């Protein structure tokens, strides 16, 4: 395996200031009265049970991912849209669409792999870097000030579906 030269990400003064900008009066709350930032109530950590070369990987993206024949996300609600779309692992790239209220999706529309790298996942399975592509992937639109909906409804529901689908690990990408 490649020896990636990762650096630990450490919260320094600059990062702290940046975070305070999000949470301060001029930040998210300025335009979204329910917008706030929270920490996971439980900081869970599951160890990888087998080598990556044997793992079936699923994608979850908050980049507004859905299929052409699924309803797009609600881009107007002040509480956001906490629903999710089930994307089968064998979905052709041409069927993937993006609808998002807060990011530019033009590059992802040109090449879905920028945001939702399903074809790249197939490539990695083909070369044996991972065990396979999981049967179920998840599309969401990440603008959700209604945080309790994520924690109490969407989160547990999606987690159960991924478990039932036999998912070994998940790669998440932000919108």
């Amino acid at each position, binding site marked *: *395996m*490649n020896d990636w*030269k*990762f*650096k*630990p*990400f450490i*919260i320094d003064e600059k990062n*702290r200031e940046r*975070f305070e900008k*999000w949470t301060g009066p001029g930040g998210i709350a300025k335009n979204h009265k329910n917008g706030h*930032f*929270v*920490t*996971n109530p*439980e*900081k*869970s*950590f*599951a*160890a*990888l049970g087998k080598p*990556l070369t044997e793992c079936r*990987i699923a994608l*979850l993206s*908050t*980049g507004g991912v859905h299929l052409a024949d699924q309803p797009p996300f609600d881009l107007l609600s002040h509480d956001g849209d906490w629903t999710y779309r089930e994307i089968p692992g064998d979905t052709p790239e041409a069927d993937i669409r993006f609808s998002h209220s*807060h*990011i*530019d999706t033009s*590059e*992802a529309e040109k*090449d879905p*792999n*920028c*945001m939702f790298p399903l074809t*790249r996942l197939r*490539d*990695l399975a083909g070369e044996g*870097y991972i065990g396979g592509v999981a049967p179920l992937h998840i599309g*969401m639109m*990440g603008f*959700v*000030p209604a945080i309790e909906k*994520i*924690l109490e409804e*969407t*989160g547990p529901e999606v*987690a*159960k579906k*991924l*478990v039932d689908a036999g998912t*070994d*690990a*998940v*790669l*998440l*990408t*932000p*919108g």
Partner: protein
Amino acid sequence: MCHQTVGLMQGRIEKAGIPCVSVTIRPEITYHTGASRSVYLRFPMGRPIGEAGDADAQLLVMRAILSVLESATEPETHLEAPFRWRRVRA
């Protein structure tokens, strides 16, 4: 908000027993969610895996991110990847 939604979903999926790794472009937000494993890329919003049409670079980024599933042994492992936008090379 998107980064927070990722971090919170990650927490719920991890709680169900599935290991997760997330990409982040706003690491200060991901850090605050207490996500299990994250990789910070200094990439523009909307393209967390890399440029449109550059499959080789996207694959390199994906291999690096996925490797953290194996290498991370502690909760809240937040790393910065050694890539720069438009200079993704091994």
